């Protein structure tokens, strides 16, 4: 009998561990990939109606995106930034460039409004026409090098381009109502922006176009007679950098239903591929093309952080082993060859290698899996209410079936609760503290999911089984967030990170990496255990591929 897709899916106990989350790779279901597929499918038209940048490289530009339903604009500002003020950290108050994704076509008055607001970022207020807010800093060494080279008619040094990978890195891309910008409810009225983080991905993609346009513009301004445009091949290797820190971590705990949808889509896709009875010549070729691309990527993926550096080394040898073994596995397997391959990987490769293989298996199977991208949004309001009419016995059952992973954890041991998450007064951003030698643990954020589940269990142990959940919560309102999360994750098991988030050994970058991989990020470059650099859209098409031919060739 055939195993169903559902039975073939990996268990949340396997998937939602920090170690594996911290080895996640982008797949064709990642959000930037689904954005680009939609742009192609719907034949978006992208133009640059305003380019008001001076010879000094400062000014503003507008990029217009016409989708079948609506028009969107990126308003970009380039401003002078003193070198001593250039920092990726949240303490920054000024940036090289700032951006707003705007609903419709901005009038001169609206551009004027944004020219005062956007460079100040969170110090200003915004309106519901503003869909996202973002800022970026130059990679000074690469930006200046590219401008210098192009201005003298030369192409930049390929090695340096590969090493840095971007001309600018964003330090924040805000969405969902922050500082008065549009709520997600308004954003998703644009059919093109309905999927998770599509407005943010569109913003970053257009920023990528702007960074190259700006560098070419600066080269021309420097030496109009000798300047040349950037070579198309080199250009394609440029993404947008991004620095991400702890600010992103609470999101993963606060949105279990949404995270479940993302992971369930990816795991469903893997199970569908494994279930295929045969491998076609086209999919086998597609797999090897993807593998070759992955090997090239790993060759230029260089990081300083020792744990990731070691993992990359193992990944490189894993991919070579995979290349050598896969041919035989695919050829000799009588039934479900991709499953044979996957099973072999599962037994023989590192976690990093397994997660990369997952991405490679999905790559040639777009027709089979791409529609899953449409299942990755969630109606979180629907899962917010607690069902208090159930009994504590039912709640007890949920603990047994969905919180079993907390059983081995012992919170009487100091290392099990060595950390606490908090919001710092100075930055108004999430931070991680040491519980036993820093003040502030009384202001802890509710990210200690495992500890809270265990506390709920001991309260339940002392209650009558027929007590209603509503009665339990009336008496013990401090368990309310845990009961809600338990009911939510019981229906959304991939939404629960099955590890202790306040353990002494917990590495926050493992949390961040899962989310960034779903965005479509590559070249994860941890700068500590708490923040990392990535690039987005590297090796993907540029917005100018969607410009009417005349404008593209004139540019």
């Amino acid at each position, binding site marked *: 009998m055939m195993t169903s897709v559902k039975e073939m899916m990996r268990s949340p106990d396997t998937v939602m561990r920090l170690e594996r989350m911290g080895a996640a790779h982008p797949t064709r279901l990642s959000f930037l990939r689904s954005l680009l597929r939609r742009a192609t499918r719907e034949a978006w038209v992208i133009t640059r109606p305003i380019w008001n940048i001076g010879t000094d490289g400062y000014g503003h530009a507008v990029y217009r995106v016409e989708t079948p339903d609506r028009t969107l604009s990126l308003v970009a500002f380039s401003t002078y930034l003193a070198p001593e003020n*250039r*920092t*990726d*950290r949240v303490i920054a108050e000024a940036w090289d460039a700032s951006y707003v994704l705007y609903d419709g076509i901005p009038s001169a008055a609206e551009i004027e409004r944004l020219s005062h607001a956007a460079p100040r970022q969170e110090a200003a*207020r915004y309106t*519901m026409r503003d869909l996202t807010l973002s800022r970026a*800093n130059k990679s*000074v060494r690469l930006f200046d090098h590219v401008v210098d080279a192009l201005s003298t008619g030369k192409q930049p040094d390929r090695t340096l381009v590969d090493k*840095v990978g971007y001309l600018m890195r964003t330090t924040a891309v805000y969405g*969902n*109502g*922050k500082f*008065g910008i*549009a*709520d*997600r*409810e*308004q954003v998703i009225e644009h059919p093109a922006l309905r999927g998770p983080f599509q407005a943010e991905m569109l913003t970053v993609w257009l920023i990528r176009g702007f960074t190259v346009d700006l560098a070419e513009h600066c080269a021309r301004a420097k030496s109009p007679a000798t300047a040349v445009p950037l070579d198309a091949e080199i250009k394609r290797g440029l993404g947008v950098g991004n620095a991400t*820190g*702890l600010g992103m971590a609470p999101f993963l705990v606060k949105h279990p239903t949404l995270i479940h949808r993302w992971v369930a889509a990816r795991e469903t896709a893997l199970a569908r591929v494994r279930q295929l009875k045969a491998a076609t010549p086209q999919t086998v070729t597609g797999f090897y093309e993807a593998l070759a691309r992955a090997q090239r990527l790993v060759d230029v993926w260089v990081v300083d952080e020792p744990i990731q550096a070691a993992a990359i080394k193992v990944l490189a040898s894993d991919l070579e082993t995979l290349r050598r073994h896969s041919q035989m596995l695919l050829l000799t397997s009588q039934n479900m060859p991709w499953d044979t391959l996957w099973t072999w990987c599962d037994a023989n490769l590192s976690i990093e290698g397994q997660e990369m293989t997952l991405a490679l298996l999905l790559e040639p199977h777009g027709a089979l899996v791409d529609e899953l991208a449409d299942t990755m949004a969630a109606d979180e309001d629907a899962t*917010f*209410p*607690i*069902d*208090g*009419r159930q009994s504590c016995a039912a709640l007890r059952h949920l603990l047994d079936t969905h919180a079993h992973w907390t059983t081995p954890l012992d919170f009487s041991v100091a290392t099990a609760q060595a950390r606490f998450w*908090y*919001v*710092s*007064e*100075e*930055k*108004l*951003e999430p*931070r*991680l*503290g*040491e519980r036993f*030698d*820093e003040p*502030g643990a009384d*202001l802890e954020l*509710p990210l200690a999911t495992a500890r809270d589940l265990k506390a709920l269990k001991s309260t339940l142990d002392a209650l009558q089984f027929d007590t*209603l959940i*509503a009665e339990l*919560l009336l008496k013990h*309102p*401090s*368990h*309310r*967030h*845990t*009961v*809600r999360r338990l009911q939510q994750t019981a229906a959304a098991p991939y939404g629960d990170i099955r590890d202790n988030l306040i353990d002494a050994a917990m590495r*926050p970058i493992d949390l961040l990496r899962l989310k960034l991989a779903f965005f479509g990020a590559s070249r994860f470059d941890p*700068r*500590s*255990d*708490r*923040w990392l650099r990535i690039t987005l859209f590297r090796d993907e098409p540029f917005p100018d591929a969607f410009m009417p031919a005349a404008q593209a060739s004139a540019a």
Partner: protein
Amino acid sequence: MIDASLNEVDALAAKAARGAGLPWGLCEETGKAARWLAGNGFEWAPSLLALLSAPDEQQVASPLLAGTHLADLGAQTQSIGPIAQPLWLLPFVARIAATNGQAIRVTWDGIMIDVWPFGGTMMGMQDALFRAKVPIVNLTPVQAGTGDELQAVAFDRAMRSSIRLESWQALEVWGARTYVPASEQSRSKGAGAGVTDND
């Protein structure tokens, strides 16, 4: 006036509630309730501030506690009181109405409100909405065709919330109680700095 997004309303109300010492789960409820009130055109901030600053009275129920309890039970018929800021029961009644697909009539001294799964109508005195305390609130399922609704005013659906600057700032003051002041250690380690980030 501040023109706030509904997500900001949610976040600010939840944070202020946490600053006032409510348990996390109730803070989440407070945020969602504020969002519902704002989204249905009700002024929500002054009554929330009053609620957060009022001393606990043994005999008077909090609408946040009472409201979540009613919503947890899915209760359609109930009399409760005395209760503070009864306006804050409406978001929870709306949840019950949505769950059951059945409108619920809420009455207290001077006002009658029909809460539908989406939106609703009200009849009575506007200022009764904002009573600080009422002796009793009654909930009953709405019987169709009573004709009462003819004179009722529909809620104003809103996508933004206009908040007086003083209210906004006062809620921020409550919220600021949730922040941990910086220490030398948190500056150097809290976000994992120490590696140059400028290249």
